[in-house]
């Protein structure tokens, strides 16, 4: 037997809960995340569930998993491979065994390893008995039968009792990491308070699992992952889509504007639409349009009417919206377009992650139509960048594209709730003097944005639209030189936003052999890889990450020029690296691309860096 990799000294651990789609693994994982947050750990989670709504029960295709990495240090990814695997059936074991570390622990519901279930998972013999799991530590937990036993006095039917076996598994894992039960039980009471019998059932099942682990002494040593040194504050776990929705709500509140969201359902962006549909209690005006084009056009109507206006979509929808985004560019209206990217082109891999809509965001319009493009880099900072996208859109009276992706949308990380003063104020660029002095395309002298006057503003009635406008007055004109001038003004307006963006900060070496570059959702894996290399003594590597793509931060050139080589890592076939090649030619760019619908593993990035350094 391989040596057990779980030790009391470990600073971080990866746990994966896995079972059939109906086994409640997402809830189980969510509850373990809560427990870990309360214990002061930093964490990152990722769900992995079948694309089918009702996949065949017991099959590998129907396996639903939830992975979490917790640590007493900062955690930026859900982990490349797994230390502890909870397998509620044979299919869950078969599906996840390849990513379990040698010496890792399997907690298996032995009751579910029936010949029928083994057959569905393509096992010829029972892996719990045939010695094939010798390199792992296997805990045989009779979750189904012990849960039934623990719940029999509640008078539930068989199905309801069996359904609580996920809580049994949670109880085992809570014991394993020396967690008190109280917090988790409080969570259950909060969540199911309106169903007292369900609260009782879940409580008893958790306790049964906890007691099973304690009394059978299956774990030699208790593990305590120490608290991470996180900034003081109130925290909660948040996924990227909810964070984007809430960022927009915060921006609406801080700007004193009503929020209008006009969207069409599309994976993986729909949850933003769902969350804001449920936020009518916060005054959100949500319109589910008949198609993607209607969605963006309605958003333009809402923007013209003076609301903070957003539309959310994914790549295919963004393609449909591109003509209308051009209208928002020439009409110079404040509009937030969120693209939660998925693997393309066309329908592609609709449930998988990719960063391949960058070119579309930058260039995907007819005419010269520059636009602000930014990208979030963790589930929790989706809140901040969504707020910033709204702030820039309003203050600079321009459409802004915010890029997220499947990985951020469904992953979670702890989010420190913003406190007073954490968020920059949003100033509405209204024309404050008499309307007689005003023209629809007059501009702020410093940033070149026009003023945002809208219906309801008396005396400011004006027409706006897709035809070229005379500088200043906004009247229609085909004058050749005016078109050239307006095209350049629109470009310059976007460029000047760079003056207000935070500069890039380099992690690790500030100059030297290699600069590793990332953008958007890959921050976690690249940052972890570089930090580990630095800890291991590497002194020639720096890392810089981009959240603002257009315009780029003002110090971009200064940062790039200090390194011999620049390695750009991204989940596409080289879109950002080519953008940098165009903007800052003359440097030695290398690229590391992964186009598998999967996020980077930390180990892949590390290997690539080491490989590059050795050349």
């Amino acid at each position, binding site marked *: 037997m391989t040596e057990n990799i779980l030790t009391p000294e470990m600073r971080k651990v990866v746990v994966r809960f896995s079972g059939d789609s109906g086994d409640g693994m997402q809830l189980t994982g969510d509850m373990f995340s*809560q427990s870990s947050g*309360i214990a002061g750990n930093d964490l990152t989670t990722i769900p992995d569930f079948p694309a089918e709504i009702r996949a065949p029960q017991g099959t590998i295709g129907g396996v639903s998993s939830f992975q979490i990495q917790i640590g007493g240090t900062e955690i930026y990814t859900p982990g490349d491979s797994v230390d502890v695997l909870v397998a509620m059936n044979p299919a869950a074991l078969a599906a996840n065994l390849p990513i379990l570390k040698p010496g890792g622990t399997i907690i298996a519901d032995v009751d579910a390893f029936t010949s029928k279930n083994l057959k569905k998972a393509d096992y010829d013999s029972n892996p719990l008995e045939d010695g094939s799991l010798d390199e792992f530590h296997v805990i045989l937990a009779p979750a189904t039968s012990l849960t039934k036993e623990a719940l029999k006095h509640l008078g539930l039917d068989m199905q309801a009792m069996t359904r609580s076996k996920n809580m049994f598994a949670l109880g085992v894992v809570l014991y394993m990491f020396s967690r008190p039960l109280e917090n988790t039980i409080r*969570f259950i009471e*909060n969540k199911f308070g309106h169903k007292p019998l369900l609260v009782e059932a879940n409580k008893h099942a958790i306790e049964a699992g906890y007691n099973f682990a304690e009394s059978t002494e299956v774990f030699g040593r208790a593990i305590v992952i120490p608290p991470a040194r*996180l*900034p*003081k*504050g*109130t*925290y*909660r*776990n948040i996924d990227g889509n909810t964070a984007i929705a*809430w960022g927009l*709500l915060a921006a609406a*509140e801080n700007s004193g504007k*009503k929020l*209008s969201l*006009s969207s069409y359902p599309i994976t993986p962006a729909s949850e933003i639409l769902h969350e804001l549909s449920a936020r*009518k*209690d*916060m*005054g959100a*005006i949500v*319109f589910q*349009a*008949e*198609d993607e*084009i*209607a*969605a963006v*056009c*309605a958003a*333009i*109507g*809402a923007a*013209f*009417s*003076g*609301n903070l206006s957003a539309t959310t979509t994914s790549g295919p929808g963004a393609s449909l919206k591109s*003509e*209308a985004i051009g*209208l928002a560019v020439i*009409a110079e209206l404040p509009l937030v377009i969120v693209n939660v990217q998925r693997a393309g082109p066309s329908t592609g891999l609709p449930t998988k992650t990719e960063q391949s809509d960058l070119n579309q965001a930058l260039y995907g319009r007819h005419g010269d139509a520059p636009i602000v493009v930014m990208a979030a880099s963790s589930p929790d900072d989706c809140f901040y960048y969504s707020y910033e996208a709204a702030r820039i859109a309003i203050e600079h009276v321009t459409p802004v594209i915010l890029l997220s992706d499947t990985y951020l949308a469904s992953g979670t990380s702890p989010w*420190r*709730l913003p406190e007073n003063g954490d968020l920059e104020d949003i100033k509405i660029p209204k024309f404050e003097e008499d309307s007689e002095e005003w023209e629809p395309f007059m501009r702020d002298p410093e940033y070149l944005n026009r003023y945002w006057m*809208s*219906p*309801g*503003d*008396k005396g*400011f*009635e*004006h*027409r*706006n*639209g*897709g*035809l070229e406008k005379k500088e200043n007055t906004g*009247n*229609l004109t085909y004058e050749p030189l005016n078109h050239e001038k307006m095209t350049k003004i629109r470009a310059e307006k976007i460029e000047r936003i760079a003056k207000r963006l935070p500069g890039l900060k380099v992690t690790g070496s500030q100059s030297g052999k290699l600069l590793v570059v990332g953008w958007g959702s890959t921050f976690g894996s690249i940052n972890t890889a570089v930090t580990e290399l630095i800890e291991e003594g590497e002194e020639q590597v720096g890392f810089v990450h981009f959240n603002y793509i257009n315009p780029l931060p003002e110090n971009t050139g200064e940062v790039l020029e200090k390194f011999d080589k620049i390695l750009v890592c991204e989940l596409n076939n080289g879109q950002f690296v080519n953008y940098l090649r165009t903007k800052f030619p003359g440097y030695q760019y290398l690229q590391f691309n992964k186009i598998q619908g999967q996020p980077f593993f930390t180990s892949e990035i590390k290997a690539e860096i080491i490989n590059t350094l050795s050349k």
Partner: protein
Amino acid sequence: MQTAVENTSPELTKKDFVSDQAVRWCPGCGDYMILAMMQKAFAQMDNAKENFLSVSGIGCSSRITYYLDTYGVHSIHGRAIAVATGAKLANPDLNVWVFTGDGDCMAIGGNHFIHACRRNADLNIIIFNNKIYGMTKGQSSPTTPEGLKTKTAPEGSHENPFNIGEVAIGAGATFFARVPDNNPKLLEDIMMQAYQHKGTSVIEVLQNCVIFTDGIHEQITGRETKDDNQVLLQHGKPMIFGKEQNIGLKLNGMRLEKFTFDNGTDGSLIHDEEEKDPAMHLALTRMQLPEHPVAMGVIRKVDAQNYSENIHRVIEAEKKKSSFKNVKDLFKSGNTWEIT
């Protein structure tokens, strides 16, 4: 905050809605009459000027937003209704008017049109139907009649055209009216009725394009023929027409049929624009020459749920029920923990 400030502005006149832009339609175009009547009707509406919004798409019709001195959006091809819907939902106090054509609205914008009819937000949509693409110079449109020669059907169109009213009512429109561009009084009256109707109002204007389809409506709207070829529907009144006002409409089995009478109205059908069942409204909408006169006036006007009102009523109710006073309350709801 945008709030309606009604009746506080001085009386508005037609001139208040005339913009400083030179009108650039072809001389003799039917659009001039629509513009003039719209400006006249606007002046009679009970809204502050800053709460008027005109939205258009692309095409000759859609130029009108530049000539109306209101807030206006000249959007992109086919999308005026979508832009207008977003604006109306954003600020329900706005008095929103959409100007579109048979190509803009029934072809590229067809999806938005049917969903607007279904949703019934409080929008007013005027469709300038000249049965041709004018601005792109003479291609067939979805309302081009069979047999008409166009740039894209040089041997004569062999497609089935849409009947705009039939599409609108079929899609659930609560208000549909038809009017020729040479009847200013009726145009103005229908614009005011559309304004008063709470929900999506669709007005089809039979509009003459002097360049590509000059005279296309002549049989219906011509001075010599209009009395015999149009029936002006009026709520609660018999459906009678003809120079002598002695032709009526009655049902023969499931079909409408015209008949001549000598005295009174002799059992002619009475128009009921408020009947919820759309069967008769559809039948009236479908009437065509030479078998039937073409129906003018308000064909359908029924009360129904209004999306723009509903959404704000639900928002207000949810806000009242909610324990969240601001985003902080929302953020703190559910499971949080403290790091000290």
